[in-house]
């Protein structure tokens, strides 16, 4: 026969479990909502998902904690590097991140700490822990009252410092755990710092630091320091191949070109040419970079003047057999604007040959007829 005390304990345990369940259910709903919000705010890049999945699969195979999180990686389009995970398993990485990293190890070492943060938040020592500085409210209010408010600022500063210190310690813990997972999966964790340095260099060159953790200069510097002070074994080992339908090299290049296309339409800055130069440096000049460079030269004009340089750049672009037919059409417009009817007609005719099924074929045929008169 249970005593009243035992009964009370059982009831308290049941209430606690219920409340815990409710809180957990609420946290899951919040994560679901956040996921829906992110997918609404950012366009997806499905072409990168299989690559991300292969990174996550390798991490999961090597570490049961990662496997237990049932991660669902998704790539989202953004010029800036971003990566974050949610407690419902959603893992986001931006095209701006993948466009700037050079190896699978770098990608794994940048993603793993983000996953580790979510994992740690769910552990007993961190779950539902009150925030630093939130305690002793009565004492603090009393102190503020007796000092007529003078104590408010130093107290707030002290609380903020304590919070930042605890936050830094937590992130370092996550970095360490993430690198342990990456090492367990067979990756060279010295690539972690190399990846972050690469982001810093790229964003500096592009004058494009931002507010997200992986785009903010200060945060990236802190990350470098954190990685340097983890005691995860760093050994140079051969790069471990991943089973992805697309390599990071090809994916990164494709996404970098996407960033350039977006930059070309966004503003009159020099970022497109900075990125084009970097791509040409790291791999040889190509049809894509020559053609986007032509567009950059054309777009650099504020008004309508079509420079000889723009025409030359376009001629260089369309000389590549694999150039997109649209560039032939654009060359035709440039020549038309400069009053070179024959050159314009030739460019449009080449467009019709190269893109016989394009949506605007009837319109371009009209141009050729007009120019033939």
């Amino acid at each position: 026969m249970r005593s009243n005390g035992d009964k009370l304990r059982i009831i308290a345990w049941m209430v606690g479990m219920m409340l815990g369940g409710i809180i957990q259910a609420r946290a899951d709903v919040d994560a679901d909502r956040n996921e829906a919000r992110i997918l609404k705010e950012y366009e997806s890049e499905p072409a990168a998902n299989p690559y991300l999945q292969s990174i996550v699969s390798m991490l999961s195979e090597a570490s049961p904690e990662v496997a237990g999180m049932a991660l669902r990686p998704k790539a989202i389009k953004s010029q800036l590097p971003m990566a974050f995970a949610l407690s419902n398993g959603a893992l986001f990485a931006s095209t701006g991140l993948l466009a700037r990293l050079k190896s699978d190890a770098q990608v794994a070492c940048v993603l793993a700490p983000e996953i580790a943060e979510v994992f740690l938040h769910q552990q007993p020592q961190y779950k539902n822990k009150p925030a630093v500085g939130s305690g002793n409210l009565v004492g603090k209010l009393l102190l503020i009252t007796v000092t007529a408010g003078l104590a408010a600022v130093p107290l707030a500063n002290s609380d903020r410092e304590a919070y930042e210190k605890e936050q830094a310690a937590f992130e370092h813990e996550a970095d360490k755990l993430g690198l342990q997972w990456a090492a367990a999966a067979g990756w060279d964790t010295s690539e972690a710092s190399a990846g972050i340095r690469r982001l810093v260099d790229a964003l500096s060159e592009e004058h494009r630091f931002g507010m997200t953790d992986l785009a903010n200069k200060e945060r990236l510097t802190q990350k470098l320091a954190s990685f340097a002070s983890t005691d995860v074994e760093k050994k140079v080992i051969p790069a471990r191949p991943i089973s992805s339908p697309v390599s990071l090299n090809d994916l990164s290049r494709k996404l970098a070109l996407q960033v350039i296309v977006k930059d070309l339409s966004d503003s009159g800055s020099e970022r497109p040419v900075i990125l084009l130069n970097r791509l040409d440096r790291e791999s040889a000049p190509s049809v894509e970079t020559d053609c986007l460079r032509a567009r950059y030269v054309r777009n650099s004009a504020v008004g309508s003047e079509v420079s000889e340089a723009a025409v030359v750049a376009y001629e260089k672009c369309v000389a590549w057999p694999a150039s997109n037919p649209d560039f032939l059409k654009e060359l035709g417009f440039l020549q038309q604007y400069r009053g070179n009817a024959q050159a314009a007609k030739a460019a449009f005719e080449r467009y019709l040959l190269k893109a016989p099924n394009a949506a605007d074929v009837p319109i371009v045929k009209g141009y050729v007829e007009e120019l033939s008169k």
Partner: protein
Amino acid sequence: MNKSRNGRIGKMGMAILLVSSLMSLAWADPVKTKEPPIPSDESLGFFGNSRDEVIAQIKRVALLPVMLPGHFGDRSETQQQIEALVIRYLEQAGFSVIASDHYKSLYDKMNVQLGGIYDPTTGELKAEQMKALRANSLQQLVMQDRLNGYVVARIVTDSTRYSYGYAQWLGVRERVDGKQEPSSAVERFFDTQSVSGNVPVISLVVQIFNTQGRVVYGRLGGIQLLAYLGVNEFLDVPTDRLLRDSARLERAVQVATMPLTHTPSQIAYGDDDPSINLTKSELWKLPEPPSAEKEKKTSPFGTNRDQMLAQVHRVAISRVAVGGGLAVPEEVRAAFLSSVRQELSKLGWDVVDVPNAHEILIDKIHGAKIFDPYTGKRNEQLLNDARKSVLDELKLDKKPDAMIWLSVKKTVVQHKGGDVEWDGANQSGLDLGPVRQGFWKGSFNGMAGNGAVSATSFNVFVADADSNRLYESAGGVELLQKLDLKVDYRYGSQTGRATPVDRAPSELFQDASRINASVHNALRELVMTPEELDAELHPKKKK
């Protein structure tokens, strides 16, 4: 006189002089002693290039047709009015402007060359064709008219904060109660209301693009309010009364083109000049704003209930279709249908399930090509004919007297203080529970303000064998968005801002009582007698 006394008086005088000088310095208006900050070109709306570069290099532009939101329908006179104003102010700024006719003719010609940009079977816009049409028509416009750029002007809606009875947004100011501003300053002083919140507004955007399609200038100007604050509620201004006030249209164009007609320095120094800072212009000089009115509830019946019940004894009922990209699981659709059957059982109708009716209708619509390939407009007669033929196609033993079409769709609704009431349903956007009653009800001064959120409604459309509308109604199901309230505490006061956040798909359609209530609200005017309906809508209070 005593020397020491003289000395004391002298010192006192010096002290008084010193103190009064210090006081006058302390009381001096600091603004008048400082130069006003000159706004940057970027803050004035110039992107990627300076104002001087844009003005020097973009001299000849064409204006594209002014774009209005779709629900305005055909308002060509309003478009022409706005176009004339935009051209006037751009010419004042030194631009040479070609009117929109040339672009329209190029666009129409190329649209025909392409065979239209809408799919005639579905009305869907063909994205590739649309892209090709726009790119080519703009290119030819630039080339033929030797342009340096082109201008886009469009009307947009949004919401803005109001406080002390006035809304100030995008360079303009309006009374939130929609009344004419008194000309007397004394009357205006006593007329001030200590109310705050959010109010929907309509504004003008003017953008200048270079020949490569890059925006080099963009700025907005507020036009007018879309709703006014009444007693404990907002009253909407009917759409056909909006954008009719030429003075307010001109004010918006002035604001949107101000950095083009005036230099940054003129704008900075003109802060007190009502012709430059239009928030300081006298509202009482503008025409009285258009009146608003409470939304009138229209009858859901095509004719009337008695006539319908006399006519209809056997009905065919479709599956629950889903619109607006909603994901509604099969079991939820089945729950809606079951609830419909339960409601209709009160009428004693002979009900026949025709789960494939929607598929048949879609096939008929595709076959009939009811959409104009050039404009995307739907031919209503062809649609009616398609609906009419569905009953024949169903090949039922006994032809029903009417067809009931059911669907669940997304809708946009207004929240007031976080509370939403729509299509007979209510839900709090803040905690997703029922709307607060009593003290907290309808708190338009509440921190959540007012605004728009998306929701779902269950729709019923009943048509007879000739596709005549017999009954059409909707019942609100639940909110698709929750309001995330952020409160800002400053110096003893607090202001809030409620932002709609999408609810997760896993949360939706979980509450069976909401499903049943939505069906009941959609059908109650049909299945209940007028007396029963009145008793439900106006319950007598218990003594």
